Protein backbone atom coordinates (compact mmCIF):
# COMPACT_ATOMS: atom_id res chain seq x y z
CA UNK A 1 0.00 0.00 0.00
CA UNK A 2 1.24 3.43 -0.86
CA UNK A 3 1.32 5.65 2.16
CA UNK A 4 -1.42 8.21 1.92
CA UNK A 5 -0.54 11.82 2.34
CA UNK A 6 -2.46 14.79 3.58
CA UNK A 7 -2.34 17.74 1.20
CA UNK A 8 -2.22 21.22 2.62
CA UNK A 9 -3.59 24.08 0.61
CA UNK A 10 -2.97 27.53 2.00
CA UNK A 11 -5.03 30.30 0.49
CA UNK A 12 -1.96 32.05 -0.96
CA UNK A 13 -3.39 35.42 -0.08
CA UNK A 14 -1.06 38.30 -0.62
CA UNK A 15 -2.89 41.43 0.48
CA UNK A 16 -2.54 40.90 4.20
CA UNK A 17 -0.33 39.20 6.71
CA UNK A 18 -2.93 36.50 7.44
CA UNK A 19 -2.34 34.82 4.11
CA UNK A 20 1.35 34.73 4.94
CA UNK A 21 0.72 33.23 8.35
CA UNK A 22 -1.26 30.46 6.69
CA UNK A 23 1.48 29.87 4.16
CA UNK A 24 4.26 29.91 6.74
CA UNK A 25 2.27 27.46 8.87
CA UNK A 26 1.89 25.19 5.86
CA UNK A 27 5.65 25.28 5.30
CA UNK A 28 6.32 24.38 8.92
CA UNK A 29 3.89 21.48 8.65
CA UNK A 30 5.22 19.89 5.47
CA UNK A 31 8.90 20.51 6.14
CA UNK A 32 9.05 19.87 9.82
CA UNK A 33 6.12 18.83 11.98
CA UNK A 34 4.49 16.39 9.57
CA UNK A 35 7.34 15.76 7.20
CA UNK A 36 6.67 12.82 4.92
CA UNK A 37 3.02 12.71 5.91
CA UNK A 38 1.98 15.88 4.18
CA UNK A 39 2.63 17.94 1.13
CA UNK A 40 1.73 21.33 -0.31
CA UNK A 41 -0.48 21.91 -3.26
CA UNK A 42 -0.96 25.09 -5.23
CA UNK A 43 -4.35 26.78 -5.11
CA UNK A 44 -4.19 28.71 -8.38
CA UNK A 45 -3.50 25.44 -10.18
CA UNK A 46 -6.52 23.82 -8.59
CA UNK A 47 -8.79 26.66 -9.59
CA UNK A 48 -7.39 26.51 -13.06
CA UNK A 49 -8.57 22.90 -13.11
CA UNK A 50 -5.27 21.06 -13.55
CA UNK A 51 -6.44 17.44 -13.83
CA UNK A 52 -3.51 15.61 -12.25
CA UNK A 53 -3.64 17.81 -9.21
CA UNK A 54 -7.35 17.40 -8.71
CA UNK A 55 -7.22 13.62 -9.13
CA UNK A 56 -4.47 13.46 -6.53
CA UNK A 57 -6.48 15.51 -4.06
CA UNK A 58 -9.59 13.41 -4.61
CA UNK A 59 -7.81 10.26 -3.54
CA UNK A 60 -6.09 11.85 -0.55
CA UNK A 61 -7.03 13.89 2.47
CA UNK A 62 -7.07 17.64 2.01
CA UNK A 63 -6.68 20.41 4.58
CA UNK A 64 -7.24 24.04 3.62
CA UNK A 65 -5.83 27.05 5.46
CA UNK A 66 -7.54 30.36 4.82
CA UNK A 67 -6.39 33.82 5.74
CA UNK A 68 -9.62 35.79 5.59
CA UNK A 69 -13.35 35.18 5.86
CA UNK A 70 -13.68 35.09 2.08
CA UNK A 71 -12.38 31.54 2.55
CA UNK A 72 -10.98 31.27 -0.94
CA UNK A 73 -9.13 28.06 -0.33
CA UNK A 74 -12.09 26.36 1.27
CA UNK A 75 -14.53 27.52 -1.39
CA UNK A 76 -12.31 26.83 -4.35
CA UNK A 77 -11.16 23.42 -3.17
CA UNK A 78 -14.68 22.34 -2.22
CA UNK A 79 -15.81 23.25 -5.67
CA UNK A 80 -12.93 21.80 -7.66
CA UNK A 81 -12.28 18.68 -5.61
CA UNK A 82 -15.70 18.15 -4.10
CA UNK A 83 -14.49 17.78 -0.51
CA UNK A 84 -12.35 19.25 2.23
CA UNK A 85 -11.23 17.10 5.15
CA UNK A 86 -10.07 19.83 7.44
CA UNK A 87 -10.19 23.60 7.44
CA UNK A 88 -8.33 26.27 9.35
CA UNK A 89 -8.40 30.04 9.47
CA UNK A 90 -5.25 31.89 10.34
CA UNK A 91 -7.41 34.66 11.77
CA UNK A 92 -8.68 32.21 14.41
CA UNK A 93 -5.14 31.80 15.70
CA UNK A 94 -4.87 35.58 15.89
CA UNK A 95 -8.13 35.74 17.84
CA UNK A 96 -6.97 33.04 20.24
CA UNK A 97 -3.72 34.90 20.92
CA UNK A 98 -4.82 38.45 21.28
CA UNK A 99 -1.72 39.47 23.17
CA UNK A 100 0.37 38.48 20.18
CA UNK A 101 -0.63 40.86 17.45
CA UNK A 102 0.90 40.02 14.10
CA UNK A 103 3.07 42.68 12.51
CA UNK A 104 1.97 43.97 9.15
CA UNK A 105 5.22 43.39 7.35
CA UNK A 106 5.02 40.43 5.08
CA UNK A 107 8.53 40.27 3.72
CA UNK A 108 10.10 39.42 6.00
CA UNK A 109 7.47 38.41 8.49
CA UNK A 110 7.60 39.79 12.01
CA UNK A 111 8.32 37.82 15.18
CA UNK A 112 4.72 37.56 16.35
CA UNK A 113 3.51 36.51 12.94
CA UNK A 114 6.12 33.75 12.97
CA UNK A 115 5.07 32.58 16.42
CA UNK A 116 1.44 32.53 15.34
CA UNK A 117 2.37 30.53 12.26
CA UNK A 118 3.98 27.91 14.44
CA UNK A 119 0.93 27.70 16.68
CA UNK A 120 -1.27 27.25 13.67
CA UNK A 121 1.11 24.64 12.26
CA UNK A 122 0.84 22.65 15.47
CA UNK A 123 -2.93 22.59 15.17
CA UNK A 124 -2.81 21.55 11.55
CA UNK A 125 -0.37 18.75 12.40
CA UNK A 126 -2.72 17.46 15.04
CA UNK A 127 -5.47 17.32 12.46
CA UNK A 128 -3.20 15.49 10.03
CA UNK A 129 -2.49 12.80 12.60
CA UNK A 130 -6.17 12.50 13.31
CA UNK A 131 -7.02 12.14 9.64
CA UNK A 132 -4.31 9.56 9.01
CA UNK A 133 -5.28 7.57 12.07
CA UNK A 134 -8.89 7.37 10.96
CA UNK A 135 -7.73 6.37 7.53
CA UNK A 136 -5.73 3.45 8.92
CA UNK A 137 -8.53 2.50 11.21
CA UNK A 138 -10.90 2.40 8.28
CA UNK A 139 -8.74 0.10 6.26
CA UNK A 140 -8.01 -2.49 8.89
Amino acid at each position, binding site marked *: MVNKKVYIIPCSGI*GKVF*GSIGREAAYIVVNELAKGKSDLECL*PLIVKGKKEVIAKLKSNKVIVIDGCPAK*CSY*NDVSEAVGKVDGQFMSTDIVKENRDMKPEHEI*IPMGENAKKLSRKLAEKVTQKIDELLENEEGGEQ
Partner: protein
Amino acid sequence: MSTKPKIGIIACSGENLVGGTLSRAAARIVVEKLRPDKTVILCQPLFMAGGLERHGGTEERDFAKTHPTITIEGCKEECARIAVDRYSGKPAATIYVEDIINAHPELKPKSKEDLGKDGVKLAEIIAEKITEKVDELLERN
Protein backbone atom coordinates in the same frame (compact mmCIF):
# COMPACT_ATOMS: atom_id res chain seq x y z
CA MET B 1 -12.03 62.20 -4.79
CA SER B 2 -8.82 60.51 -5.78
CA THR B 3 -8.60 59.95 -9.48
CA LYS B 4 -4.90 59.34 -9.70
CA PRO B 5 -4.11 56.58 -12.13
CA LYS B 6 -3.07 53.36 -10.51
CA ILE B 7 -1.74 50.09 -11.78
CA GLY B 8 -2.90 46.72 -10.50
CA ILE B 9 -0.37 44.04 -9.62
CA ILE B 10 -1.39 40.43 -9.37
CA ALA B 11 1.12 37.71 -8.60
CA CYS B 12 0.71 34.02 -9.28
CA SER B 13 1.10 33.29 -5.56
CA GLY B 14 1.73 29.63 -6.27
CA GLU B 15 3.03 27.36 -3.54
CA ASN B 16 4.80 24.61 -5.41
CA LEU B 17 7.76 26.34 -6.95
CA VAL B 18 10.22 29.00 -6.01
CA GLY B 19 8.78 31.04 -8.88
CA GLY B 20 5.61 31.55 -6.87
CA THR B 21 7.53 32.75 -3.85
CA LEU B 22 9.58 35.12 -5.98
CA SER B 23 6.51 36.49 -7.74
CA ARG B 24 4.91 37.23 -4.42
CA ALA B 25 8.01 38.78 -2.90
CA ALA B 26 8.61 40.96 -5.95
CA ALA B 27 5.00 42.13 -6.02
CA ARG B 28 5.19 43.18 -2.39
CA ILE B 29 8.44 45.03 -2.90
CA VAL B 30 6.77 47.04 -5.66
CA VAL B 31 3.62 47.93 -3.74
CA GLU B 32 5.33 48.52 -0.40
CA LYS B 33 8.62 50.13 -1.32
CA LEU B 34 9.08 51.09 -4.95
CA ARG B 35 5.70 52.47 -6.07
CA PRO B 36 3.40 52.41 -3.05
CA ASP B 37 1.44 55.33 -4.33
CA LYS B 38 0.89 54.14 -7.85
CA THR B 39 0.12 50.48 -7.48
CA VAL B 40 -2.56 48.36 -5.88
CA ILE B 41 -1.97 44.74 -5.06
CA LEU B 42 -4.72 42.34 -6.01
CA CYS B 43 -5.16 39.08 -4.19
CA GLN B 44 -5.05 36.27 -6.70
CA PRO B 45 -7.12 33.71 -4.74
CA LEU B 46 -9.71 36.34 -3.93
CA PHE B 47 -9.70 37.43 -7.53
CA MET B 48 -10.46 33.92 -8.63
CA ALA B 49 -12.95 33.10 -5.89
CA GLY B 50 -15.04 36.13 -6.81
CA GLY B 51 -18.77 36.52 -6.45
CA LEU B 52 -18.73 36.72 -2.68
CA GLU B 53 -21.17 39.57 -2.61
CA ARG B 54 -19.79 42.73 -1.14
CA HIS B 55 -16.75 41.05 0.24
CA GLY B 56 -13.89 40.15 -1.96
CA GLY B 57 -13.56 38.98 -5.50
CA THR B 58 -15.83 41.40 -7.28
CA GLU B 59 -13.92 44.40 -6.03
CA GLU B 60 -10.63 42.95 -7.23
CA ARG B 61 -12.13 42.10 -10.61
CA ASP B 62 -13.74 45.49 -11.03
CA PHE B 63 -10.45 47.16 -10.35
CA ALA B 64 -8.69 45.13 -13.03
CA LYS B 65 -11.47 46.01 -15.47
CA THR B 66 -10.91 49.72 -15.10
CA HIS B 67 -7.17 49.86 -14.41
CA PRO B 68 -4.17 48.52 -16.31
CA THR B 69 -3.06 45.39 -14.51
CA ILE B 70 0.26 43.55 -14.60
CA THR B 71 0.32 39.83 -13.96
CA ILE B 72 3.39 38.09 -12.60
CA GLU B 73 3.76 34.43 -13.43
CA GLY B 74 5.82 31.97 -11.40
CA CYS B 75 5.60 29.12 -13.88
CA LYS B 76 4.36 28.16 -17.31
CA GLU B 77 0.82 27.63 -16.09
CA GLU B 78 0.18 31.39 -16.27
CA CYS B 79 -2.56 31.25 -13.67
CA ALA B 80 -2.65 34.97 -13.00
CA ARG B 81 -2.77 35.97 -16.66
CA ILE B 82 -5.51 33.47 -17.41
CA ALA B 83 -7.56 34.56 -14.43
CA VAL B 84 -7.36 38.25 -15.30
CA ASP B 85 -8.10 37.51 -18.92
CA ARG B 86 -11.15 35.47 -17.96
CA TYR B 87 -12.71 37.88 -15.49
CA SER B 88 -11.51 41.36 -16.31
CA GLY B 89 -10.09 41.45 -19.80
CA LYS B 90 -6.61 41.33 -21.21
CA PRO B 91 -3.89 42.23 -18.72
CA ALA B 92 -1.75 45.24 -19.62
CA ALA B 93 1.46 43.30 -19.21
CA THR B 94 2.76 39.96 -18.02
CA ILE B 95 6.09 39.28 -16.37
CA TYR B 96 7.54 35.80 -16.46
CA VAL B 97 9.62 35.15 -13.38
CA GLU B 98 11.21 32.04 -14.87
CA ASP B 99 12.82 34.08 -17.64
CA ILE B 100 14.39 36.39 -15.11
CA ILE B 101 15.60 33.45 -13.01
CA ASN B 102 17.25 31.99 -16.10
CA ALA B 103 18.88 35.30 -16.91
CA HIS B 104 20.53 35.35 -13.48
CA PRO B 105 21.96 31.88 -12.89
CA GLU B 106 24.34 33.34 -10.31
CA LEU B 107 21.46 34.19 -7.99
CA LYS B 108 19.95 31.01 -6.68
CA PRO B 109 17.25 31.22 -4.02
CA LYS B 110 17.85 28.89 -1.09
CA SER B 111 14.39 27.31 -1.21
CA LYS B 112 10.81 28.27 -1.88
CA GLU B 113 10.25 28.65 1.85
CA ASP B 114 13.28 30.82 2.44
CA LEU B 115 14.62 32.84 -0.43
CA GLY B 116 17.93 33.55 1.27
CA LYS B 117 20.16 36.50 0.41
CA ASP B 118 20.52 35.73 -3.27
CA GLY B 119 16.84 34.98 -3.60
CA VAL B 120 15.91 38.33 -2.12
CA LYS B 121 18.31 40.01 -4.56
CA LEU B 122 16.59 38.17 -7.37
CA ALA B 123 13.19 39.29 -6.08
CA GLU B 124 14.49 42.85 -6.11
CA ILE B 125 15.55 42.50 -9.72
CA ILE B 126 12.10 41.18 -10.62
CA ALA B 127 10.56 44.05 -8.71
CA GLU B 128 12.65 46.49 -10.77
CA LYS B 129 11.32 44.93 -13.95
CA ILE B 130 7.76 45.27 -12.70
CA THR B 131 8.41 48.88 -11.75
CA GLU B 132 9.71 49.63 -15.24
CA LYS B 133 6.44 48.30 -16.62
CA VAL B 134 4.44 50.31 -14.10
CA ASP B 135 6.15 53.54 -15.13
CA GLU B 136 5.75 52.70 -18.78
CA LEU B 137 2.03 52.08 -18.38
CA LEU B 138 1.56 55.25 -16.37
CA GLU B 139 3.21 57.29 -19.05
CA ARG B 140 1.03 55.75 -21.69
CA ASN B 141 -2.17 56.46 -19.79
